[in-house]
């Protein structure tokens, strides 16, 4: 029960933090925001790795967990790379990238 309360506590605070952060993202960057947050939701890979690396597994759960790792990796790799590709294109008038 204590764990549940603690995890819920983390959840609620994170949601508030999320609202504060995302409200500051200008509409110009909404597409990179979506693909970038997609990459972050690929964090499921942590769960997938644990499930795929456990000692005792049935054949079915191995297949499921491996597929989960693959899908989450696509999210992570594809999400970050395509976001970078987009953000690279946003330039200021003087032509500078403005790093």
């Amino acid at each position, binding site marked *: 029960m204590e764990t*549940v309360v603690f*995890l819920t506590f983390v*959840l609620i605070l*994170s949601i508030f*933090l*999320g609202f504060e*952060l*995302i409200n*500051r*993202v*200008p*509409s110009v*960057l909404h*597409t*990179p*925001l*979506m*693909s970038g947050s997609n*990459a*972050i*939701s*690929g*964090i*499921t*890979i*942590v*769960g*997938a*790795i*644990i*499930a*795929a*690396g*456990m000692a*005792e597994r*049935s054949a*079915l*759960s191995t297949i*499921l*967990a491996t*597929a*989960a*790792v*693959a*899908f*989450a*990796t696509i*999210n992570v*790799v*594809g999400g*970050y*790379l*395509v976001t970078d*590709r*987009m953000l690279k*294109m*946003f330039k*200021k*008038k003087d032509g500078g990238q*403005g790093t």
Partner: protein
Amino acid sequence: MSLFGIIGLTYVLAAVLFVVGLKMLSSPVSARKGNALSAVGMLLAIVATLLDQHVVSYHWILVGILLGTVAGILAARLVAMTKMPEMVALLNGFGGIASLLVAWAVYLQEPGLSHFTALTVFLSVLIGGVTFSGSLVAYLKLAETISGKPLVFKGQHLANASLLLGAVLCGVFFTLDPQGGSWIFAVTVVISLLLGVMSVIPIGGADMPVVISLLNSYSGLAACATGFVIVNNILIVSGALVGASGIILTGIMCRAMNRSLGNVLFSGFGATTVGVGQAAKGVVKALSPEDAYLVLEAAASVIVVPGYGLAVSQAQHVVRELGELLEANGCEVRYAIHPVAGRMPGHMNVLLAEANVPYDQLVEMDAINPAMPTVDVAIVIGANDVVNPQALNDPSSPIYGMPIIKVHEARTVFVLKRSMAAGFAGIDNPLFFADNTRMIFGDAKKTISSLIAEFKKG
């Protein structure tokens, strides 16, 4: 310090990097670095997990990571910027299915689930499944593999309500008795997938910005639920950030259409629309590109209003070229972007950035509207409903109340359009008949190319 402690601290660091990364997304100047920081956070989280004591065999993990990396790199490299909505839809779906699969694997591996874990497994499967199948349907609609029109049928609401009820019952049974027969679990998987399909098919192509944002949020919530399943904070924090992001974007999109989320999700807009507003009357004044050039040549300020048609005709590069010629001619050029222009939030901004339009020339609807009467020429490219004055002055119109870019207040309006066919919503647009409007018919890319040719001649 124990290994457990080190892993935990690494997760904290990863969470901090995600937060800082999102914070840096508040300006195009720092955004790219922010994304890189966020990626470093992800890498740390993955490495820490590989050190976890529960992880004893690595080869299947390696197989999964290799497959995913190859697919991810290829997808990110090859996707055309016009196809970004499809890509994001697929990524949403993959996040969802990953959560479903993890919950499923945990369910198979752990013999004695507690009631609470059972509930979170159920939620993980339900949200993950809805996200997955819903995103696939959204993808198929965006790619126009299936019709983008809303698909509505008799008894749809009843069917959806039954599915929802079935899901709730499964949840109750599964939570009360996690060991009580795997068929309940199987039914939950099937219901979640059906629910995803059923909830997206009645939504039309032009409402896709809302759907993608909402599914984006779901994919975060699915990760959150999985975090509860495996008792892991980093999943909960990251999932909540993504969930909040999707919800905010959904809200922005709904406000930009002056519709409630419920209306978008359940009304089958465009298919069941009752009122169509007053029929627009008047004479359409067509203009040739040659004559349009003469007007543009004399203009001191020009606003370009892009819509989904810009993406369809791939006209972003010629638009930028025309913009540069106009600027060389001493004209001020800006691009006014409606929040729901295109098929996903920020779609038009990315296309124009791809064509090298500087982001300081991209202006939001609210910023440009007050200045509209001082604009010499507003060029509408492949947009329709977002510039329809009916939204302001015709209470019988289905889009009445939707904020629009007030191009009709500009001195002259050029509308680039293939034909006089009505827009997505099937609503007449009085803008086309206004005294200050000139229609330039034809493919947008060809029209703009001929304008460029005129400029180069002149």
